[in-house]
């Protein structure tokens, strides 16, 4: 009996070729995974290395000066940094209520399921439209359409520095609006996912003690889903800061600093898109310095987003 078993089922020894394939495959996938780290580090290293000239010449002065003069080689990115932060935060403030409101509308049982699905899919398809197409639409359709309204605001409130220039086409306000369109899908779909993950027992418990729908949403569901929503909002902030094409086409590309949201302005990414092609000498180094600042800003926002999702989600598990 023993003999029969060994003859029929002998232990298979692994041939060397199989071991080689196994080890080789593992090494290949490790190498592929390392590519992420290599690319990431080399992006930072290269951008830092290329901007050293400008960093050593201007230091932190670069952040607070709005001079941009290739003739005298005097550079400062204050207008672009202010433009980046202002446009992205302003668009975020508009997009948060819209996006979270839409997410609530399509997750709570307000409307029949198929309409919910249609709205959800439409908002996600909005994310698939390339930024440059949105820019084209903004330049030819949206901006001419909203200009009369902006003009009315200018005539009524023009004495406030914020509205102090006449809207004449490209400017910060249309850029903010197109950014809202671009970051809405991110906020909506991430809020939708995190609202969907709230256990239905929480909802039932709240309804059971007589809470109304919106009390349940504000006091139970949103607090339970807040980590995901915050993560989505921060992700959207990062996206808004780095968004390039639509903004470049509509913001007017001017390095003159102005408090007015109707005046042409700059963001770091639109400055890069606009000037990189024909820059040379120390201008390249200054643009690289601006790119480094943009990278650090988006990195901080992204890391903070991941940290907050981890921290807040622990609270409700």
């Amino acid at each position, binding site marked *: 009996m023993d003999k029969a078993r060994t003859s029929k089922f002998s232990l298979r020894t692994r041939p060397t070729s199989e071991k080689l394939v196994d080890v080789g495959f593992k090494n290949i996938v490790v190498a592929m995974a390392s590519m992420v780290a290599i690319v990431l580090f080399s992006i930072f290293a290269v951008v830092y290395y290329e901007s050293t000239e400008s960093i050593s010449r201007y230091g932190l002065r670069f952040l607070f000066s709005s001079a941009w003069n290739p003739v005298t080689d005097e550079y400062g990115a204050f207008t672009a940094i202010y433009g980046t932060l202002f446009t992205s935060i302003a668009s975020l403030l508009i997009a948060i209520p819209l996006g979270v409101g839409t997410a609530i509308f399509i997750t709570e049982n307000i409307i029949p399921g198929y309409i919910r699905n249609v709205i959800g899919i*439409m908002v996600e398809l909005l994310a698939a439209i390339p930024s440059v197409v949105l820019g084209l639409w903004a330049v030819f359709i949206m901006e001419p359409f909203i200009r009369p309204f902006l003009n009315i605001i200018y005539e009524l409130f023009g004495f406030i520095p914020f509205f102090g220039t006449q809207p004449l086409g490209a400017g910060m306000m249309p850029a903010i609006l197109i950014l809202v369109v671009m970051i809405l899908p991110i906020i909506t779909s991430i809020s939708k996912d995190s609202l969907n993950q709230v256990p239905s027992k929480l909802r039932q418990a709240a309804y059971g003690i007589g809470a109304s729908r919106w009390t349940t949403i504000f006091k139970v569901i949103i607090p339970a889903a807040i980590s995901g929503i915050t993560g989505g909002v921060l992700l959207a902030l990062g996206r808004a800061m780095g968004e390039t094409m639509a903004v470049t086409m509509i913001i007017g590309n001017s390095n003159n600093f102005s408090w007015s949201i109707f005046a042409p302005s700059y963001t770091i990414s639109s400055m890069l898109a606009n000037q990189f092609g024909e820059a040379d000498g120390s201008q390249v180094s200054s643009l690289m310095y601006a790119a480094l600042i943009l990278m650090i800003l988006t990195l901080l926002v*992204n890391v903070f987003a991941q940290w907050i999702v981890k921290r807040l989600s622990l609270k409700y598990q």
Partner: protein
Amino acid sequence: MNYTSQKSLTYNPSLTRNIGNKALTIASALFAIISVLPLILVISYVLIKGGSYINLDTLILEPEPPGDDLLSAGGIGPAITGTFIMSVIASIISIPVGVGGGIYLAEYSKSGKFAKFIRFGSNVLAGIPSIIAGVFIYAIIVSTKILFGSMFSGIAGGISLSILMIPTIIKTTDEALKLVPNDMRRAAFGVGASKFTMITNITLPAAFSSISTGVLLALARAAGETAPLIFTALFSRYYITSLDDLFYEMGSLSVLIYNFALEPYEAQNQLAWAASFILVVVLLSLNILSRWIVTLGAFSKNKV
């Protein structure tokens, strides 16, 4: 004892809480309408305005220099092939790297320090603005003339697009492989399969539909990107005629839209709309195709 007798249990619409409830529901419906509105407006403008400029000439001809001839601006043929070529280059680089990295994360090191770092790194890479990918490739390939002494090239454009695709593909591969039940892995090992056989014959086929969805979505995003291309591939008005042309400037739909939208000439603007039409139709179909693949995958999982 008075609370049982005095309050009616029937729905009373004039209560503050019920009015507030209605108002908030209406507000959220309004927000949803406002969020969907831009999509409808953009798509209808692009389809109607862009679609009306589409004809065989537009699809095939090379674009004329701006301002030359208002009646015939030429076409967007080279831009279509350019976008296609650069997407292919980007896929050739990013699919092996992304799927390989995803396999490492899901199959070899699920929670090791290195795997954690790679996951974090691909999240960071996904958050880096696309224009930075262009700046990076400009610095290491374009300005150093490392590719046969040529500066702006289709290959540099493709590489910069691949940087944007890698994090998405890694993440979806990782997630898709994690969803494959561990029982299938144990069964494969139980019949004596090696790890390589297990991965290529069991887990990868099981996760295939989700992985291809991720690849399609990454491709759709990369094909519409402009920012990394404006100073890596630049723009060219001519068709490529030989493999050598890959090392020189190459046109793409997105850069064509950007360049021609800002031209003051009506004919060029029309080409920009036509190019948007093609781009939007292709990208939306890729997105819908990926959704369809997901439903196919769900179906086959039920069969298993």
